[in-house]
């Protein structure tokens, strides 16, 4: 069940009878790991990152030294060509990868809810890439894309497509990452399969009797009923795509010519290779605001297209 749908109203304490303090204390005690964790590992760091974003930092053996520099870091965020390139790369990746992932995983789910044989085998097969450790899959895909000995060019040659340089070509490196991300859509697929299983068969049959063809049934019944899950997958996929890191670090380390330098990779470099932690925090805050902004905007826009059954 998508979180956005979750009935938090259930939690309303409807009875007005006084709760003894012992119950309160027990409640806080049992919840204390979360409350402490939230304060120490989430809330404080977010605030600290904001403070850092206004500092020039040096990290040496004596520890971290900071000096207030006002908006200088943020000015650099908006003028540094590398930062702009990283943001462009990230946006490019997200804009193409996310819709393609959704279309692909939805189609797979539709296919795997048909009365096929060996359905469980197919599902497991499409889900398997999610199980492959991220580092291992990056290592393998680096070679899948290899111009001479990779399986992608080998596969494409069956169809007469000439060999491409993929990760060594600045125009094809980002598409290569997008292509790789389509291999990892098992989770979205499983969510869609679960949702498709909940669509009442009687609705589809009734539409059939009324003369609706397959296309109409998909667009007029299945899709509208699936919008909550499409929305859910969309939100999660966008958050994840904006933060792509591990494959980029391992497969290309940002190259060629910074064409796969994504935002998080840039933040990692600034923070942990160049030790500009103040500037890196400003970059992180920029990305943070963009991702949160997108998420909130989507919740807002979703009121127009997501259909919730009463």
């Amino acid at each position: 069940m998508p979180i956005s749908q979750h009935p938090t109203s259930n939690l309303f304490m409807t009875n007005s009878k006084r709760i003894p303090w012992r119950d309160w204390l027990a409640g806080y005690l049992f919840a204390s790991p979360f409350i402490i964790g939230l304060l120490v590992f989430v809330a404080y760091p977010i605030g600290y990152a904001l403070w850092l974003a206004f500092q020039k930092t040096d990290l040496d053996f004596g520890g971290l030294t900071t000096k207030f520099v006002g908006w200088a870091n943020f000015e650099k965020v908006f003028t540094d060509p590398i930062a702009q390139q990283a943001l462009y790369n990230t946006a490019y990746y997200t804009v193409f990868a996310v819709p393609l992932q959704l279309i692909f995983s939805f189609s797979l789910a539709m296919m795997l809810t048909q009365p096929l044989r060996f359905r469980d085998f197919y599902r497991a097969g499409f889900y398997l890439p999610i199980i492959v450790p991220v580092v291992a899959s990056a290592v393998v895909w680096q070679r899948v894309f290899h111009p001479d000995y990779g399986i992608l060019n080998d596969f494409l040659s069956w169809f007469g497509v000439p060999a491409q340089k993929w990760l060594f070509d600045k125009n094809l490196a980002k598409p290569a990452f997008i292509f790789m991300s389509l291999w990892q859509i098992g989770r979205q697929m499983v969510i869609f399969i679960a949702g498709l299983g909940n669509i009442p068969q009687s609705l589809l049959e009734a539409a059939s009797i009324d003369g609706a063809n397959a296309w109409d049934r998909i667009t007029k019944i299945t899709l509208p009923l699936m919008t909550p899950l499409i929305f859910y997958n969309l939100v999660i996929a966008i958050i994840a795509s904006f933060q792509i890191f591990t494959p980029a670090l391992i497969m290309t380390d940002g190259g060629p010519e910074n064409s796969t330098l994504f935002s998080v990779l840039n933040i990692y470099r600034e923070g942990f290779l160049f030790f500009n932690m103040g500037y890196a925090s400003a970059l992180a805050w920029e990305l943070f605001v963009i991702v949160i902004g997108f998420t909130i905007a989507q919740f807002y826009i979703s009121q127009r297209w997501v259909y919730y059954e009463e």
Partner: protein
Amino acid sequence: MSINKKTRQLLSLTALQIFATLLVLTFLMPTLWMISSSFKSSTEIFVVPIKWIPDSLRWKNYVDAFTQPALPMWDFIKNTVMVVTVSLLGTMVSSVMVAYSFARLQWPGRRLFFGIMIATLMLPGIITLIPRFIMFKDFGWINLTIPIIDVYFPWLPLVVPPWFAGTGLYVFLMYQFMRGIPDELDEAAKMDGANRVQILTRILLPLCKPVLATIAVFGLIQYYNEFMEPLIYLSKLDSWVLALGIRAFNDTNVQNWELVFSASVVMLIPVLVLFIVAQRYFVQGIAMTGFGGR
């Protein structure tokens, strides 16, 4: 007419069956290629067109991968097992506690904190990366040698946050499940004089086994996969986890693809076995929450 329709349906299903088979084979290709190449010799890897079945299974690749002096694979494996175990244990204990509080206890602010927990599921984690690093550095946890007993333990930044319900998703899963257990059970136990800890551990937890298994499976995959945090926290080679080891292995063996592949297969095997054994918990968990895996 109806026979015609039936044959048409059968035909399209058959076509779909063939299509699905081809597609799933394509999907499996990178993984199969990785496994097959891990048994090849160098000369078999660098041939065009690709040779899918090696002449003989070179188990030696695996031996070589493990005996490279530059990268102590056994240490990486030991470290990984330790980090994953401690993190997972913390996740289970803290998730159970917090979920119990949200699902069963009455306290002011409960709704607020629950809402915040849901919101943190959508929090872009990158924002806490740098400040957490500085914070842990201030704590003295980075490259820590525990004083008095003089034990080198640089993994605290990785294994401590899970003890504080670091992943709200697992609390949420647990919470959902506990809400489905009738309150009357608690009440009855209370009548019999059980306290809250007893209610939780003796009454609720035994009923929560399926969801505990789901959390264990997801958590295991998550901590096993963790790359970015070990990358910034673990600087000394002998403290590395497998994920870092494979990456370094990849960087240092540019020519020896077969070794890189066999090292990757080594990292894949445990999760693959887990997937085969516990498949239903994966599917159950994803269907319940929409998250999971990594």
